[in-house]
């Protein structure tokens, strides 16, 4: 589903991604962990071309993301993204947020889009909030609407960029539950997260990134109990010690 080869990315003269290569299979759930500034989010944003890579190649669902000839709008319609700060459209209701892209990009009628929107809102447990504006919703509710909005395009791949980092602690659970149910439903997912317990629970595979590179990857059991790299062990001991 996703093939990344020798990805290079610079911000100015600073190299933030160095020779990143990996392959993600259909229906695989991959969590990316690592310290802040390790390039996790940049890696994720390269996959749907929100960041332009300077070298290497990315292929998603048959689209060559890195080729200049690719229609990025078409690619992005196949790749859903959920942001750290939700990024709901504040001038539209929850339902309108979800209906917009299916209507404008896929050409669904208003009735079809609304039916789909209502169904998705019910799925994330917010059926009664259809006509609320984002500023009337809690952070957790906003993020669930944002997930529903991305799902409305029926993407082949879902990308999550630290979906719970901007949430109050008591709201983390409700969002993780929605993501978990998606993972069990069998969708290709790449999740950048700091929630180690969650990563361990839902991942088929974990990538550990540090200083712009994938240092180590493997099953959750392997990464959490018998990591090979010293850097992985140091990082995990730092984040797990306070739990």
């Amino acid at each position, binding site marked *: 589903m996703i093939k990344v080869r020798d990805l290079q990315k610079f911000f100015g003269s600073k190299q933030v991604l160095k020779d990143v290569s990996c392959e993600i299979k259909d229906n695989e759930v991959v969590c990316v962990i690592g310290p802040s500034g390790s390039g996790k989010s940049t890696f994720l944003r390269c996959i749907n071309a929100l960041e*332009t890579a300077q070298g290497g190649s990315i292929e998603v669902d048959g689209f060559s993301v890195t080729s200049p000839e690719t229609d*990025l*709008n078409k690619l*992005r319609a196949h790749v859903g993204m959920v942001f750290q700060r939700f990024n709901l459209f504040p001038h539209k209701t929850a339902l309108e947020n979800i209906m*917009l892209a299916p209507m404008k990009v896929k050409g669904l009628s208003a009735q079809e889009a609304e039916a789909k929107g209502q169904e998705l809102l019910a799925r994330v447990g917010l059926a009664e909030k259809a006509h609320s504006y984002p500023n009337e919703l809690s952070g957790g509710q906003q993020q669930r609407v*944002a997930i529903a909005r*991305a799902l409305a*395009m029926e993407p082949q791949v879902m990308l999550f960029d630290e979906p719970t980092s901007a949430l109050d602690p008591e709201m983390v659970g409700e969002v993780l539950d929605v993501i978990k149910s998606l993972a069990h439903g069998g969708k290709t997912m790449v999740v950048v997260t700091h929630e180690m317990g969650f990563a361990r629970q839902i991942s088929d595979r974990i990538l550990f990134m540090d200083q712009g590179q994938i240092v180590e990857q493997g099953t959750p059991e392997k990464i959490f109990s018998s990591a090979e790299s010293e850097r992985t062990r140091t990082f995990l001991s730092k984040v797990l010690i306070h739990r």
Partner: protein
Amino acid sequence: MFAWFRTDIIIEYWPLFLQGLRTTLILTAIGIFFGTLLGLFLGLGKIAKVERGLWKWPVQLLIRLPSQIYIGFFRGTPLFVQILLIHFALVPLLIHPDDGLLIQGEWALYLKREYGALISGALALSLNSAAYIAEIFRAGIQSIDRGQFEAARSLGLSYFHTMKSIVIPQAFRRMLPPLGNEAITLLKDSSLVSAIGLAELAYAARTAAGAYARYWEPYLFISVLYLIITLAMSFVVHRLEKRYQAA
């Protein structure tokens, strides 16, 4: 107390003042309409950018750079000079009975005689206000959180749809106050057009003043008229702000 104020001058020249008021309002309306339209495209043009591919350089050289030059010129030179340049140099080049680039012959002669100063004046004010409005649009668009743009693009929306459905509606609320200011500036600046003989308010006042060698009455009178219109405009903008804030 106001016995010195000769109302009879205002009354005698009433038709001219009325016609001048009409012309001032028409000029302002045209300037706001075309200035906003052109300003929107210029503002978008000034920040247009294609990261990669075939369109990168054409967009840079044919859209971004000309927009920047246009805005730089019209904001960096006096409106008064622009009016003279447009009336005496640009418009004769475009509309001329013999060799007008746009319109020639009888039609050009008629336009020039009947509407010459109005065309030049309206053109100058529109082109000038477009540059300022472009900056208002640019600032408004850039004030919108980048995450909004990214969220829309990540859903597969095109640049055009993202701007139209997501960015511009949000930016518009923030642009209302500066747009209101620009409309008021435009109304006041329209008085400069009297220099090319267009009979708007300031021209009417100058005519009345010249006939009687009295200056208080005509200029005070049109000052009050300008003031009434600007206050009315402020009021409308204020109401619009309130309405859009609620939404």
